[in-house]
């Protein structure tokens, strides 16, 4: 039995957890323990084999909505999503946070550089973002780093008058191997594992990986509950992981402050199974996923697609009016094979053209609905993700699909392929032969398990709101009615943050870390 006492326990080492751990270590003398459910795989483990690297993902990549229709990807390893994502970096969007201020009564989160939120010197979101951008080297790739796939996407957009922009990426010294999604073997992707986690370790934070938290512990504090720690299990260290700082077996951790940063699927599941008071039935509700629909185009010539920086260009042309972004990315063969429709000779013929494929996708900012929720299932031992696309969201995806068909033909494709088994065209498939067929996208029903829609951006399942009817936690991330328990990750966003969330999550975590440092008396008065 591992028995630990500390000031602050942080659950999860992804975008949020590693950042908040490093920030607390930088600004306070608090003792901090950071636990991660997954292993500590480093650059030496990442072998660029698509299948082998599925171990980096939650449920080995098998996590999905309960109907099996939407895969919901998440990193389950040290660094979390930042270890397996494509380094796509979007600053927090002020309009979104201002809307949250109005609709969810959020406080703080000033975008003004001179603001001192909560009376804490220098506490504002602008400063937090500046720190993140610097530490993770967020910058746009050079023109010389743009591969064929991204170039074709940009050409197609431009020729139709659809504006396209360069992504910013958190990278340094990228060699363009094309395996961002399988873990960066060169430490060139500046995720939290190589940035804030290293800062945290240097500054004395204790990392325990392979550690699942079963329960948060509470005691009564007057009319309130107070979180006093957590317990769980440390699994035997998996082959290829760096060594652990505690032996396998049960673990119990006493803490004055518990910070839940396990991501928008695991965080609500942990609160649910810990029986956190939930008088307004808010845990897990209003989950958003950024449902994404890919397209592929077949060209007459070979294309550099899976090599080079995977994502260099995106378009927000349709964002304001239709709520989706077009984002250029590409798949290695397993993912490509699963995404491409059909089976048998037809499917293999598509795969034979793999080196002539270009691809991108639409990422929808989905409409929150209380019926979409994450809950904990003791029977299955996994979080249950109940999610259905709403009718307006389906309509927007149909519109997006049609625009994607037009764009990929404008970039020179001879065929356009949607990831669907629906008989959309007169030929009974989802393979389009000209831009004039884009209208067939209107027939997409998005019935589950017929058209592949996927998610890598679960958010908003333990929302912040000063109004406990709208959210589980206040603007500090403190769970309503419980002291010593903070939620800080993408689940705390009241709705979608409006873009690929990594940098917004890290900014939130940097902000909350500095706030906690400035308001230590609120949490750990006994130890000051």
């Amino acid at each position: 039995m591992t028995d630990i006492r500390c000031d602050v326990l942080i659950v999860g080492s992804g975008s949020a957890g590693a950042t908040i751990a490093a920030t607390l270590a930088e600004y306070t003398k608090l003792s901090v323990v950071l636990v991660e459910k997954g292993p500590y795989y480093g650059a030496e483990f990442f072998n660029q084999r698509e299948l082998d690297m599925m171990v980096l993902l939650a449920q080995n990549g098998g996590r999905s909505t309960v109907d099996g229709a939407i895969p919901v990807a998440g990193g389950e390893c040290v660094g979390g999503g930042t270890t397996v994502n494509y380094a796509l970096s979007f600053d927090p969007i002020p309009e979104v946070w201002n809307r949250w201020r109005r609709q969810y009564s959020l406080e703080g989160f000033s975008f003004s550089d001179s603001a001192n939120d909560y009376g804490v010197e220098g506490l504002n979101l602008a400063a937090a973002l500046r720190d993140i951008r610097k530490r993770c080297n967020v910058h746009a790739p050079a023109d010389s780093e743009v591969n064929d796939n991204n170039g074709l996407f940009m050409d197609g957009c431009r020729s139709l008058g659809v504006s396209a922009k360069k992504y910013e990426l958190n990278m340094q010294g990228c060699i363009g191997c094309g395996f961002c999604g399988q873990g960066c073997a060169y430490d060139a992707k500046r995720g939290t594992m190589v940035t804030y986690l290293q800062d945290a370790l240097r500054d004395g934070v204790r990392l325990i990986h392979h550690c699942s938290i079963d329960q948060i512990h509470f005691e009564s504090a007057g009319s309130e509950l107070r979180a006093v720690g957590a317990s769980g299990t440390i699994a035997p260290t998996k082959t290829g992981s760096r060594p652990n700082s505690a032996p396998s077996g049960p673990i119990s951790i006493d803490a004055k402050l518990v910070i839940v940063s396990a991501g928008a699927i695991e965080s609500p599941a942990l609160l649910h199974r810990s029986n956190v008071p939930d008088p307004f039935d808010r845990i897990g509700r209003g989950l958003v996923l950024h449902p994404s629909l890919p397209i592929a185009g077949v060209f007459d010539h070979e294309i550099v697609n899976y090599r080079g920086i995977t994502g260099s260009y995106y378009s927000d042309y349709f964002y304001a009016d239709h709520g989706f972004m077009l984002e250029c990315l590409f798949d290695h063969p397993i993912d490509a094979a699963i995404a491409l429709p059909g089976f048998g000779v037809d499917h293999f013929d598509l795969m034979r053209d793999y080196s002539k494929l270009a691809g991108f996708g639409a990422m929808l900012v989905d409409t929150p609905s209380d019926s979409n929720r994450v809950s904990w299932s003791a029977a299955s031992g996994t979080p249950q993700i109940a999610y259905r696309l709403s009718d307006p969201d389906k309509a927007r995806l149909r519109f997006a699909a049609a625009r994607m068909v037009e764009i990929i033909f404008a970039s020179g494709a001879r065929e356009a392929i949607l990831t669907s088994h629906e008989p959309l065209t007169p030929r009974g498939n989802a393979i389009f032969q000209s831009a004039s067929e884009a209208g067939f996208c209107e027939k997409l029903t998005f019935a589950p398990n017929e058209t592949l829609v996927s998610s890598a951006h679960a958010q908003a399942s333990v929302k912040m709101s000063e109004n406990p009817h709208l959210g589980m936690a206040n603007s500090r991330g403190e769970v309503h009615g419980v002291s010593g328990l903070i939620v800080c990750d993408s689940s705390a966003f009241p709705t979608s943050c409006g873009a690929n969330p990594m940098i917004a999550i890290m900014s939130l975590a940097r902000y909350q870390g500095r706030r906690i440092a400035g308001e230590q008396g609120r949490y750990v008065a006994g130890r000051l």
Partner: protein
Amino acid sequence: MKRAAFVGSSVAMVAAAFLRNVSLAAETDAAGLELTVLVETLLPFGSPAFPAIPSTAVVQRIEGLFKLGESPVFQASLRGFSSLAFFSTGDDQLFAAERAVSPDSDPRDLVRRDAAAFAATGLSPAANFQYLKPERKSQYVRLWSQSAFSVRRRFYGSVRAVTFVAFYSLREAWPAIGYAGPILKGARA
């Protein structure tokens, strides 16, 4: 072609989850129906340009990765698939599985739609999948891919996904599709 590591790899493993949770009727003589028969419909072994990898090797690899043989539920699902008669009818287990994921669906309506699609193919309900001619096998698999039942589409998608994971992760499969694989060489690759 987006969410690279995410899109497909996730779908791939969905199979295991589905197969644990959903069971189809097992009321037919499916003696000896093996996954191999279905895998041989999903991948065109022996066709021109197809790599010289035998179907048995792919099936063994599926077994090694996903342990489907250890799942009685998967075996029952496979038997349900193999009986063509079942496609036009269904049973309480199937309806319950469907209702669990789409509570607002009407099983009678779904059965009617699948029966109509089945009738249009001219396939014989008395047949068993493994004894169909190749083009008839494809026709039947296509019915599953477009079934009115979400759980039937899921079964198709799951078996398809585990098959493609097992096959396209093989280095020997890459030359045929022009994929050069990892840049890292030596011990790690």
